């Protein structure tokens, strides 16, 4: 996979292999925390620190307000980012290079934040759902396991995020 900043208000994913495209096409599903309470709590944490010197009733009141007012906005923002990435991925084309078919995709710079959000949501959920180590080198299971695929996904997503942060979003 090649990541290119076009310096024309767009960035491109080039020479995306079949496996890499499969990983990208999983972003939306992977970012869904359903069925994993830890992932839900991680994506939608309490607004109050666990060590806050407040009585439990005050904490409950703040958390109830948060769920009612801030929660839907946060959820909506996450959903919009995932939809933007889904639409961008739907525009991917097959491009031939050196006799091999690859996927290619050009994305407006203005979508970079949505991509970072979607990729990060997916990374967080993957780590919680599969109880992944924070470092890829710590993996012990073989290369064909679900955990290995989840680590590969997370690594690819992290690499794209690093590119977007350094080449597109950093001012």
């Amino acid at each position, binding site marked *: 996979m090649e990541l290119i900043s076009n310096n024309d208000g767009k960035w491109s994913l080039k020479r995306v292999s079949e496996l890499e495209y499969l990983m990208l096409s999983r972003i939306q599903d992977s970012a869904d925390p359903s069925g994993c309470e830890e992932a839900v709590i991680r994506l939608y944490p309490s607004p109050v620190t666990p060590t806050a*010197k*407040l009585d439990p009733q005050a904490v409950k009141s703040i958390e109830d307000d948060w769920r009612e007012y*801030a929660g839907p906005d946060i959820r909506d923002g996450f959903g919009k980012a995932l939809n933007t990435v889904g639409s961008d991925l739907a525009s991917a084309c097959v491009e031939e290079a050196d006799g091999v078919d690859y996927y290619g995709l050009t994305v407006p710079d203005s979508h970079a934040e949505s991509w970072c*959000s979607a990729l990060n949501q997916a990374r967080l959920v993957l780590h919680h759902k599969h109880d992944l180590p924070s470092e890829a080198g710590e993996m012990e299971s073989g290369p064909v396991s679900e955990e290995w695929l989840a680590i590969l996904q997370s690594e690819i997503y992290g690499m794209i995020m690093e590119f977007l942060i*350094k080449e597109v979003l950093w001012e």
Partner: protein
Amino acid sequence: MSVQNTSVEVEAVPVADIEGSENLAPPWKVLIFDDPVNLMSFVTLMIRRIFGYSESKATELMLQVHHKGRAIVWTGEREKAELFVQQLQSCQLLAAMEPVD
């Protein structure tokens, strides 16, 4: 029924006193907690964007989060603290607030 000639005494409170009393409310701290999954560059970028801090200050705070597990990134009135926590959580940073001791 007529309400003419009815008077209600209301004690006037100067606006300055109301604003002053708001300022006496205890300040709140906004904290970011370490999350090994979040990229360091991502945390730095979001701190810069949300608080308008310089690159060096944002990097210093990110490193504090990374090494010490948490960092106080802002202190001030509760409403603004809530807004910052919402913005940070919208970027999937592990952020929360608490009153200053």
